[in-house]
């Protein structure tokens, strides 16, 4: 599986979350959305110890790799100690991972790759050419188009040019219920970053995965007129 869906992260996807305040954050990695709210769980999962921000130090990013071991999703490293203001980015290089969701909560703070709220990023490397209408299945109304051009490497110079191109990313900003730009044009192998701030809780999903009627697909990019619905998880 290699679908555009922040609710089901696989090889080529990343989800990053910044942690604004000190305290313990417990998070869970699941193959689907049918897990109890992270905020209600006090056992299990993995713990990120967020220390107070260290003055003068440059904020760092910590990467967590998700893989499948004995049929269960595991993470590496299992324990993290970071400082407030720093970010953790989850990804997988394991093709056996069909898809995972990460969600966690601490005191006065929560995050969820299926309902992304603030100071977070979702990335997707596009591996198959085509026109992708991305949307938010949670109904915020944000959405847009990614046009992915095919690449045919016939000569060595084509390959060099392509390798240069895939090192550049497409960029989309979601703030609140608005997103821009409305359309991005890339080639196969390029990655698109969605930066999310002050959002009501969005997911980035290929519109073909969302049943028409689940939300307002007639989005007005940049204006966010779509009616936002509460997600189907217990969001306390």
């Amino acid at each position, binding site marked *: 599986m290699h679908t555009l869906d922040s609710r089901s992260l696989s090889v080529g996807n990343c989800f*990053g979350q910044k942690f604004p305040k000190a305290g313990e954050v417990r998070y869970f990695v699941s193959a689907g959305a049918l897990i109890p709210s992270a905020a209600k769980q006090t056992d299990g999962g993995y713990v990120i110890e967020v220390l107070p921000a260290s003055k003068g130090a440059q904020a760092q*990013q910590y990467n967590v790799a998700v893989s499948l071991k004995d049929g269960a999703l595991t993470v590496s490293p299992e324990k993290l100690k970071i400082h407030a203001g720093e970010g953790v*980015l989850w990804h997988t290089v394991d093709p056996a991972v069909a898809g995972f969701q990460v969600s966690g909560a601490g005191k006065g703070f929560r995050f969820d790759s299926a309902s992304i709220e603030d100071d977070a990023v979702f*990335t997707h490397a596009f591996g198959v050419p085509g026109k992708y209408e991305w949307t938010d299945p949670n109904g915020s109304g944000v959405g847009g188009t990614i046009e992915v051009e*095919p690449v045919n490497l016939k000569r060595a110079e084509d390959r060099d040019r392509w390798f240069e191109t895939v*090192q550049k990313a497409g960029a989309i900003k979601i703030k609140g219920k608005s997103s821009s730009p409305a359309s991005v044009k890339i080639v196969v192998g390029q990655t698109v970053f969605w930066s999310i701030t002050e959002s009501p809780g969005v997911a980035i999903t290929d519109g073909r995965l969302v049943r028409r009627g689940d939300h307002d697909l007639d989005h007005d990019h940049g204006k966010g007129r779509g009616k936002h619905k509460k997600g189907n998880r217990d969001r306390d």
Partner: protein
Amino acid sequence: MSDIIAAADQTAATTLLHDAEATLGRLSKSGGGSLGPFVANYSASVSFSGGSVDLIPPNIIQLADCNVNYSLNFSFGIDLNDFLPSFCLPQICIFGWCTPKICISWPTVTIPISFSDTLTITGDFTVSAAQVGPNWIVSITIQSVPLLQFGAGTAALLAVIAAAVTAAVVWIPFIGPFLAGLADLVIAAIGIAGLTGLLGDIITPFISGLTFTLPPLPAKMLVLPAGGPTDPEVDVTITALGAAVQASDKNELVLSASIA
């Protein structure tokens, strides 16, 4: 001295053999074999048609240009890592975030192939007769497997494989840029030798021991039906049956029967 002699010239023998081909029908088998560096699992069916008979004394029936009509379904697995260069999504930094470098592991894919074609064979057969239950059976059995020449069929099958490889992998993420040469690499790995090797392995068992049988001849034949309670039917029983090609002004397939 035989009691009954029946003879068929080459034209009649050809007709008999075409009937025998039709009676044989379609033969099937399945198994596994090598397709160059790959392992293929196959199911195949074969029928025979056409050809002309040349009678050669003392006991050879040469069947020339007999059509071997075959249909194959086979599949083989390809570990794409053996053919494609490694590819890694580079680290990209934007919005204060950096993605890690992620290397793509190419999957192993199964390539399904369906193919039908006809080849022609020319082979020498021997004729024999044996009593099987209440009947005498005349069998025409191939002596050895003739050279199988797949010819244009091989080129056609290579094209089918190339198309199937492309169709089987086109859905794989990030493969698009590398797709152009993939089919050529797979075809080169299989090679003509690999292909004819597999075809030979599949088709040869159908031809090895190939036997056509003529319509069965009852060992006991009614000559006169019963005329009444005191006039029983009259039968003759074939006690021996010989089959051979005999030289004459036009060579003939001769059946010689002894009766009681």
